[in-house]
C-alpha cells in the first residue's frame, strides 16, 4: 500500500489522531514552547526537526502529560488530554521512547519490555507483541536476561523502542531514536520506524538527523526556539532552501 493510499484511500485515512493547538509550556519561568500547533493523522509518520533547544522534547513532554501546557489544547482521538496525568495518557494509547532512552538499568531486557505493557492485562496479546518486538529486534531476544544498564547504546535504543511498542500504542512518539548511534545502526533504526508504521502505527518522530527523518516521514514540522517555523509535506521540506541550509547541510 502506498502512502497516498493509506492517507486517503481506505476510509481510516485522514482520521485525525492528535491535535496540538497553540500550546505554551514552561519550565518554571522559562517559556520553552511559545504557541506550537501540530497534527498527526492515521497512518502517518510526522517528523519534528529543529536545532538543539528548539523545544522538540518539551513538545513531546507536553503531549505525554509530564509537562502540562499553561495555554492551548491537546486532543487525542477527539478527547482533551491537555491536563491528563501521564499514566492516563499511556492508557489512552500514546507511548514514547524518550530522549536518552531512560531504560530501567537494573532490570533485564525482558523486564524492561514487560514494563512497557504495564497498563495492559491481555496476556496473550502481550505475548504476541513481545514476539513482534523480538521479530523487529532479533538482538533483543538474544539479550533477554541481560541487565539493560549493561547494553550498548544501540541495543538500549532498541529496548527503548521495543518497550514503547509493548504498550500497543495508537500513537508512537520517538525522541531522537538515532542519537549517538553508528551510521549502520541509524539506517536500521529508520528502517524499523518505517516497518512499525507499515504495520499500522502512526509515528511522531523527533530527530536531529533531518535528512533521514524527512526520507521516512510523510510530513514535517521545523521548530525554532519554541515555535513552528515551517511545516509542509516531507518531500517539499527536502526541497525547501531554508531547511536545506539550516538542517540538511546543503548550501
Amino acid at each position, binding site marked *: 500500500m502506498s502512502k497516498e493510499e493509506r492517507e486517503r484511500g481506505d476510509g481510516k485515512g485522514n482520521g485525525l489522531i492528535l491535535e496540538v493547538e497553540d500550546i505554551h509550556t514552561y519550565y518554571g519561568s522559562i517559556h520553552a514552547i511559545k504557541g506550537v500547533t501540530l497534527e498527526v493523522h492515521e497512518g502517518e509518520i510526522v517528523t519534528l526537526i529543529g536545532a538543539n533547544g528548539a523545544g522538540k522534547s518539551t513538545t513531546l513532554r507536553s503531549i505525554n502529560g509530564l509537562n502540562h501546557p499553561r495555554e492551548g489544547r491537546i486532543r487525542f482521538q477527539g478527547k482533551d488530554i491537555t491536563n491528563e496525568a501521564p499514566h492516563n495518557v499511556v492508557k489512552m494509547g500514546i507511548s514514547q521512547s524518550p530522549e536518552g532512552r*531512560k531504560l*530501567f538499568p537494573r532490570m533485564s531486557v525482558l523486564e524492561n519490555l514487560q514494563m512497557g505493557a504495564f497498563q495492559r492485562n491481555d496476556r496473550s496479546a502481550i505475548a504476541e507483541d513481545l514476539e513482534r518486538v523480538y521479530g523487529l529486534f532479533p538482538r533483543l531476544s538474544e539479550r533477554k536476561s541481560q541487565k539493560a544498564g549493561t547494553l550498548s547504546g544501540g541495543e538500549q535504543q532498541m529496548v527503548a523502542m521495543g518497550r514503547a511498542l509493548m504498550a500497543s500504542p495508537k500513537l508512537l512518539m520517538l525522541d531522537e531514536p538515532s542519537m549517538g548511534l553508528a551510521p549502520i545502526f541509524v539506517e536500521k533504526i529508520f528502517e524499523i520506524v518505517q516497518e512499525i508504521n507499515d504495520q499500522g502505527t502512526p509515528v511522531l518522530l523527533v530527530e536531529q538527523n533531518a535528512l533521514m527523518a524527512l526520507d521516512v516521514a510523510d510530513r514535517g514540522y521545523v521548530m525554532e526556539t519554541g515555535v513552528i517555523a515551517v511545516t509542509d509535506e516531507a518531500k517539499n521540506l527536502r526541497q525547501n532552501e531554508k531547511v536545506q541550509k539550516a538542517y540538511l547541510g546543503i548550501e
Partner: protein
Amino acid sequence: MASQARTEPPSQIAALLSRPRPSLVAIIGILVVLALIAWLVANFVKDPAEFVNVFLIGLTRGAVYALVALGYTLVYGILQLINFAHGDQFALAGLLASSVLLSVFNVTDESGAGIVIVAIGVTLLIAMVFAATTNTVIERVAYRPLRQSPRLAALITAIGMSFIVQNVALGFYDTQFQSIPRLVPNSDVFSVGGVALQWNKFFVLLLTIPVLLALTWLVTSTRHGKAMRATSMDPDAAAMMGINVNRTISFTFALAGALAGAAGLLYLLYFTTMRFDTGFELGLIAFTAAVLGGIGNLTGAVLGGILIGLVQEFNEGLTVLTPGGDWTRSIVFGILIAILVFRPSGLLGEQTPEGG
C-alpha cells in the same frame, strides 16, 4: 616485592602496578574484623550457652530495628529522601498501641490468653493502619509539594516533621513513660543445656519473619512492587509506562508506615514501656542499620538491623574484654560514621534499591 618486580618483563610490571594494592584503610578494616572475630570466639569459648543467649537477645532487638530500618530504606529507595519523621511515627504508633491495650481492652497482668491474643491482634492492625495513614499524609502534605525543589529542602522538612510528630506525642502523652503489663510472658519456650529462648523474644521473631516474607513477595512479585522498582529507578520513565507515580509513592509510604506501626507494638510488648522520644534514638539506630546495610537495599536493612542489634547486645551482655553498656551509643554511632566515611554504599549497597 618491588625489587622482585624490577627483574620481571615490562608487561608483568605494568600488570603488577595496575593491580590495586590494598589500601591502609582496607588493611585496618581487615585487622578490626579479625580482632572482632577473635573477641567473639574468646567469649564463645568462655561460656557457650551464655553466648547463644546473648545472641538471641540481640537477634530480637535486631528484628525490631530491621522493621524500622526497612521504612527508612523503602522511602529512600523511591524518593532519595531520609524520612527523619519515621522513628517518631514508630513511637507515636507504639504509644497509641499502649492506649488501645490499656483503655480499650483493659489488659492486666491477670488477663487470660484468649483476650490477650485478640487484643494484640487488633492493636497490631490499628497501629499499622494508623502509622501507614500518618506516613502517607506526611508525604502528601510535606514532601510532595517539594518534589521538584532541591533535595535539601525536603530533608530539612523531614527534620521539621520529626519534631512535629514528636511534639504531637508529647502533647498527648506528656513526658511520662507509658507502661503496659507483660502480656507475652518471659517464660521459656525451651531450655537446653543453659540455652533458653523466652516467649517474649520468640514472639517478636515469630511476627517479624512473616512480615519480612510478605514484604519480599510484595516488592518482587506484585504489580505494586514492579511499579515501586520502576519508580525508584526513574520516575519519569515509570510514568511513561503508565505507572501512577504519585500513587506508587503513597503506597511506599503506607508500607513503610505499616512496618513502623508493627515495630512500635512489638517494641512495646517486648520492653513494656515507651515514651514520646523513644523514637528519636531508636530511629537514629534504625537509620544507622539502614546505612550499614546499604540505604535503599531491603535485604541490607534487615541485615543492618540484625547486626546492630547483635552489636548492642554483645557489647552489653558478653564478659570477656567487653566495653559495656556505657559505650553502646558511641559504638553504634561510631559505626554510622565509619560507614559514611569508608563505605557510604553500605555492606550490600552495590546491589540495588528495592532489591532489583
